[in-house]
């Protein structure tokens, strides 16, 4: 089916080559990082994870969100998602690959990556995260490819795929739960030490993933002859609305516990993130942007008449995506390190090489999405 990705108009190839250019730039800077060490990034002894691990965390959510299409379609027989379910699965594939790449570029000794498998350590959550992420990737590759192939041949998907699809549902929940456990089980990191970390991850995932899917579906509609269907997109909009509200609710729960209990350690990271501490406040404008964007998105989405207008839905989806990206792709991971265990403030901002490597990984993910979506859309255009 790959041949479908090799034909396209000028716009298509222009897009592919721009992505390749960004990937190439990122790769060159990655080689530089390999040579110099992670000192090339903005990370330090105090903020020892930065943009890379934050992107990883965010993208696990995007990957998990495919389940928001799988559950209605396969468990509730919601036929309208039939046309776009493949987009959810392919988005998951691309997101998981980006996750693995972000973990890889974050390693100090990437050539030793196989040590995780050579010395399996079940007491480490990272071991389980490696298992569930790779398993999820395999599941989606198998399910996505097989169902699409069946569709091309005008056949129902083979029976053996069904159990895999059912397994993929709890599996999607597991990837985000296990990723939350990476953080939620660490003593002494107050921002992360919360039992609702996994639910928060899931709520933000089910907001950001379907929001991205809305954006992608509307793009597909514009650049191809394939229409994902108005109702399917509207239902996605509904899912985003619920998820973004629940996400805000969970955030307010955290604020309540931290500030009503008045325990200094619990309040510090929130104070740093939203107001700055001792004159340090690099993340303050970002966090308020995220907060305001999510409020704006809720205001737009909560009214069904507004949400039904595709332009407004598109804008809201973009707002939700940016807001959840800032919240999880920056605030959550970096905020967990500030203040440090000595209650000192060491700030972090990514360096240019770090940003370029990050963009390189994103470009790789977008390339994978583009190619996979191109294949899917071409087949759907044929069969429609």
């Amino acid at each position, binding site marked *: 089916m790959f041949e479908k990705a090799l034909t396209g108009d000028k716009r298509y190839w222009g897009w592919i080559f721009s992505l390749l250019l960004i990937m190439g730039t990122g790769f060159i800077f990655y080689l530089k990082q390999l040579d110099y*060490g992670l000192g090339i990034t903005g990370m330090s*002894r105090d903020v020892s994870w930065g943009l890379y691990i934050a992107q990883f965390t965010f993208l696990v959510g995007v990957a998990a969100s495919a389940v928001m299409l799988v559950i209605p379609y396969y468990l509730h027989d919601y036929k309208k998602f039939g046309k776009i379910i493949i987009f959810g699965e392919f988005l998951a594939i691309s997101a998981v690959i980006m996750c693995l790449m972000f*973990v890889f570029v974050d390693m100090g000794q990437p050539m030793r990556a196989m040590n995780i498998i050579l010395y399996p350590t079940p007491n480490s959550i990272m071991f389980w995260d490696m298992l569930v992420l790779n398993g999820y990737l395999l599941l989606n590759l198998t399910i996505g490819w097989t169902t699409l192939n069946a569709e091309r041949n005008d056949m129902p998907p083979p029976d053996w795929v069904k159990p895999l699809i059912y397994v993929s549902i709890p599996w999607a929940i597991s990837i985000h739960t296990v990723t939350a456990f990476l953080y939620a089980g*660490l003593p002494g990191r107050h921002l992360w030490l919360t039992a609702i970390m996994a639910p928060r991850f899931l709520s933000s995932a089910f907001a950001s993933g379907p929001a991205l899917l809305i954006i992608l579906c509307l793009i597909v509609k514009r650049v191809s002859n394939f229409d994902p269907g108005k109702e399917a997109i509207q239902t996605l909009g509904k899912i985003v609305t619920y998820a973004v509200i629940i996400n805000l609710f969970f955030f307010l729960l955290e604020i309540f516990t931290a500030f009503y209990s008045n325990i200094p350690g619990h309040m510090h990271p929130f104070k740093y993130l939203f107001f700055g501490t001792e004159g340090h406040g690099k993340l303050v404008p970002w966090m308020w942007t995220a907060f305001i964007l999510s409020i704006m998105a809720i205001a737009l989405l909560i009214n069904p008449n507004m949400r039904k207008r595709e332009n407004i839905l598109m804008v809201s989806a973009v707002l939700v995506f940016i807001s959840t990206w800032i919240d999880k792709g920056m605030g959550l991971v970096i905020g967990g390190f500030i203040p440090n265990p000595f209650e000192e403030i060491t700030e972090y901002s990514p360096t240019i090489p770090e940003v370029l490597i990050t963009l390189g990984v994103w470009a790789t993910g977008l390339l994978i999405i583009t190619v996979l979506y191109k294949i899917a859309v071409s087949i759907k255009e044929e069969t429609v």
Partner: protein
Amino acid sequence: MEFLLYIRVIRIFVKFVFNVLENMETNRRQFLKIFGISTLSGLGSIPAIWAFTQHSALSTQHFGKRWAMVVDIKKFKTEDDYKKCIDACHSVHNVPDFGNPKDEVKWIWKMPYKNTFPEQEDDYISGEMKNMPFMVLCNHCKNPPCVRVCPTKATFKRADGIVAMDYHRCIGCRFCMAACPYGSRSFNFRDPRPFIKEKNSEYPTRAKGVVEKCNFCEERLSKGLQPACVEACKDNKALIFGDLNDPDSEVRKVLETNYTIRRKPELGTQPGVYYIVGAKEDV
């Protein structure tokens, strides 16, 4: 499930062998003690060895060591008292000096009281106390979160309580740095070798991209020496080091006769570094 069971059996077996080897190597004296007792009581030497291995594997509490340190802050009087401890450690372990806080690698260093014990915040503690420098280092916790999270067992707890590192296995994921509630771990953000003032060929240098920290001088303990920092300040006994499982050891005596505190005890990590807090003597 079978796979997990298999791993568990291997782990228990490896732990067993490790315990045995560890005890044979470092507890020769205790070995002789048991050996002597059992010979006296009429047992042959072979059952005695059998009994020894059984005991050491089943309960390290009786025969194993638990290394610990007491920092007596009253004894640190001058800037030089701190410096000589830090320098002794950093030079013997080839700790690089990058000259900037971002890439910094440190094993033992000074930290004001208010940062060492932030939860002890009190408006009425004197400014002098708040800013009094304390010695901080890896706590060699009994329940080390860093060991719990390490995905490759590159950091592990030895039978004698030392939380050790295998620099050759570390993949540089820095999960241990996120997990350590004491900020004890450093990462080699750059190649450290050009930044080592004087290389000590007795101890390995590290490559870039691995985590490192205080090792309680396990390489010196195996030779029967005290840790480098402890030896550097032995004149005023500012640092006391020894075996918590030995009721006659100096650390145990110091702990019995002084009120000591540990960092963040509420986290359940059970640090192996104790602090005697008090005003400086004869200042």
